[in-house]
């Protein structure tokens, strides 16, 4: 059921008026303004940026310290790489890339990607652990929203 709603006074949360987000529970909405703060918690000396992107490669949120110069490109490329490697009957668990000047780890949560990247001094184990922790934490809230592929959400 697709509903148009305004501000949900009972919970004080703004409900998106988009008809494209199916609400399994009309009283529950994703408080998207908290996402940068959640992603920011994974930032450290070795981790430069964390982001949440959809399967079309569009950014949903990035960590607060992100300068924003490279994030849209990284999100677009990682989502494309993921879709290329994914097979219909063999889902991907994680994707890790090592480049000359940095390392990237990507995991999937409810049709979205959590992407964590750092410099050369970032260890893969740490990047993966942070990505998995973010995934486990966001699995619940993101699992209550059904994203419709191909509509840019």
């Amino acid at each position, binding site marked *: 059921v697709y509903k148009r709603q305004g501000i949900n006074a009972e919970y004080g949360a703004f409900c998106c008026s988009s008809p494209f987000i199916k609400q399994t529970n009309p009283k529950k909405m994703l408080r998207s303004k908290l996402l940068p703060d959640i992603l920011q918690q994974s930032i450290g000396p070795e981790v430069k940026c964390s982001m949440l992107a959809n399967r079309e490669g569009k950014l949903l949120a990035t960590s607060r310290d992100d300068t924003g110069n*490279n994030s849209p490109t990284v999100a677009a490329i990682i989502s494309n790489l993921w879709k290329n490697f994914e097979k219909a009957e063999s889902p991907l668990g994680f994707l890790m890339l090592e480049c*000359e000047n940095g390392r990237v780890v990507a995991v999937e949560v409810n049709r979205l990607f959590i992407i964590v990247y750092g410099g050369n001094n970032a260890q893969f184990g740490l990047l993966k652990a942070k990505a998995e922790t973010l995934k486990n934490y966001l699995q619940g809230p993101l699992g209550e929203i059904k994203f419709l592929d191909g509509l840019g959400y």
Partner: protein
Amino acid sequence: VSTQSTGSILVIFFCSSSLPLLKMSPTPISVFLENLLRKVEGLEAIVLSDSGHPILSVPAESDISDSGTASTYCMVSEQANKLGLGKNKSLVVQIDQQIIVAFNESPIILSFIGTLNLNVGLILSMTDTLLAALKPIQEQFNQN
């Protein structure tokens, strides 16, 4: 060193002791990879590919495949170079119950295929060594 006596020339070559061991006792790449296969926990197969087409597989009789990862990696390696983090060196991906570690010396891809218990860190610690070993093969393929 050459000597000349009674109209003949005797040329003696001395091998320098500083020559790399590889030239003194060359080791085929397949023997090198077989040694790796025995030493790394969780490793099931190693495949050397050219533009996604397997050219060497260790063990030779193995039917374990990389699920097309090498050919896909060959296709998308150029995109990975555009992440803004420099040239892409390697990739680790979990597909279903396999973990695949692939090293990129385009068009040569070296793939390590293993179970979920694969010691990925050990393979990645050999990145520089493996890429250096792939360089001559890559140059040979580029010449052809």
